[in-house]
């Protein structure tokens, strides 16, 4: 039986080291091990506390194991990183735990961060621009708001992982993770309804007679794009239409 991992009460400097390394979790992201080597990189400071230290057999076995394939949302990977720094757990159990945890950490994080928090913060920043905000106000609002959630989520993940170990499944049922995307989605829709037209007005400028035409054209376009759903990528359509328009404007 192989046991892994150091004491549960890690020194503060080790915890901080792991936390800061989590920000570089995807430095060696690749199509084979995905986040795996990043997990190994983030957990490495804790593994040094294993019996035998840096040159010990347990350290090497654990580092090799933690650096294998793993997939999770980068902000929530701290849950796994923290959970895997446990005392006396069989290696086979750790393998099963890694396999079981990867899916939920990916889907929960994707829904909460990429599909809710990020668009919400973008729309708030666009709204600040539409309301006449300066460059500093727009960028400052976005970065402060977004990273308040970002830094807290990473810290929460590591703390939960360290404190609950292999029993982190219940933590993934946290109301913020489960219901957060719904509430943030509604807030984003509300903000989007105000922010987008305000920003478009500011870009077009005051006194322009084209506003009515822009609203009608945008409405028709949005409905068409919504009907296409996953079959069309809006940014690619934008690129194509813009290329044609630029070509037309140059040739005429």
């Amino acid at each position, binding site marked *: 039986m192989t046991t892994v991992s150091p004491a549960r009460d890690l020194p503060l400097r080790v915890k901080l080291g792991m936390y800061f390394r989590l920000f*570089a979790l*995807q*430095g*060696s*992201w*690749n*199509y084979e*091990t*995905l986040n795996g*080597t*990043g997990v190994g990189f983030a957990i*490495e400071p804790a593994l040094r506390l294993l019996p035998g230290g*840096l040159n010990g057999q347990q*350290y090497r076995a654990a*580092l*090799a194991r933690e650096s294998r394939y793993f997939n999770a949302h980068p902000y929530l990977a701290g849950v796994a990183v923290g959970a895997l720094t446990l005392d006396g757990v069989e290696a086979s159990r750790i393998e099963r735990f890694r396999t079981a945890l990867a899916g939920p950490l990916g889907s929960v994080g*994707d829904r909460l961060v990429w*599909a809710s928090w990020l*668009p919400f913060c*973008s729309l708030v*920043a*666009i709204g600040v*621009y539409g309301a006449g905000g300066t*460059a500093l106000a*727009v*960028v400052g609002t*976005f*970065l402060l708001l*977004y990273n308040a959630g970002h830094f807290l989520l990473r810290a929460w993940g590591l703390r939960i992982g360290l404190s609950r170990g292999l029993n982190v499944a219940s933590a993934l049922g946290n109301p913020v993770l489960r219901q957060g*995307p719904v509430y943030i*989605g*509604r807030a*984003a*829709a509300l903000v989007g*309804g105000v*922010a*987008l037209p*305000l920003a*478009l007005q500011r*870009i*077009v*400028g005051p006194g*322009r007679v084209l506003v009515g035409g*822009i609203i009608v054209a*945008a409405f028709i*376009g*949005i409905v068409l*794009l*919504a009907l296409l*759903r*996953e079959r069309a990528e*809006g*940014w690619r*359509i934008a690129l194509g*239409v*813009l290329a044609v*328009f630029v070509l*037309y*404007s140059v040739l*005429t």
Partner: protein
Amino acid sequence: MSLLEVLPIALLGALLGLDVVSFPQAMISRPIVAATAAGAFIGNPPGGLLIGVVLEMIALDTLPFGASRYPEWGSAGVVGGALFASQPGGMPGALPACLLAALLTASISGWSMVMLRRMIAGRLARTRDQLEAGSRDALLLLHLSGMSLDLLRGALVTIVAMAIFAPLVRAIVAVWGSESAASHAVVVVIAAIVAGGALWKVFHSVRHVLWFFAAGLLVWSALLITR
């Protein structure tokens, strides 16, 4: 632009390109930040902000899920912001031309990220034995070289894009045929359609979301009347 002028922009493109995936993913790579920062480097933050907002609306359509290929907005935002901020004010073709350059850069830069991640997988395959033996040095080398290569990738993309698009945008703006209002209107309509479509794509499964969007539009209408 001379090489000396492009170098700070390339450094910015490198740092913000690194943020997209490798470090620290604090979203300083979002176009609203990247383009504004590039505009500030040129001495025209409002110019960078304007194109940054347009790019941000378009970027709402691309969410970095899993291993899907998506455009890289960090370096692209820097290129778009630097190009637009350096145009003389009031040129009708500047916004569409710079936006096109930024979107093309985003696409090419997205492809370069895929190439980089394949390269890292290749390096991983070559050091697999060492990693399986639990070599700390092999892991740190793989990880830190991956980040360094990503930094280099962002710089190269920015330099190449600036070298190609700076003269091209200047030439396009010089011969631009459409009037100013129409040029802005086309850009605004494109951004509005992509942003609106993106919001629907992301949030359509949330119950009552249309009512919340409609409530937002009502607030906007009220602001319009009271202003």
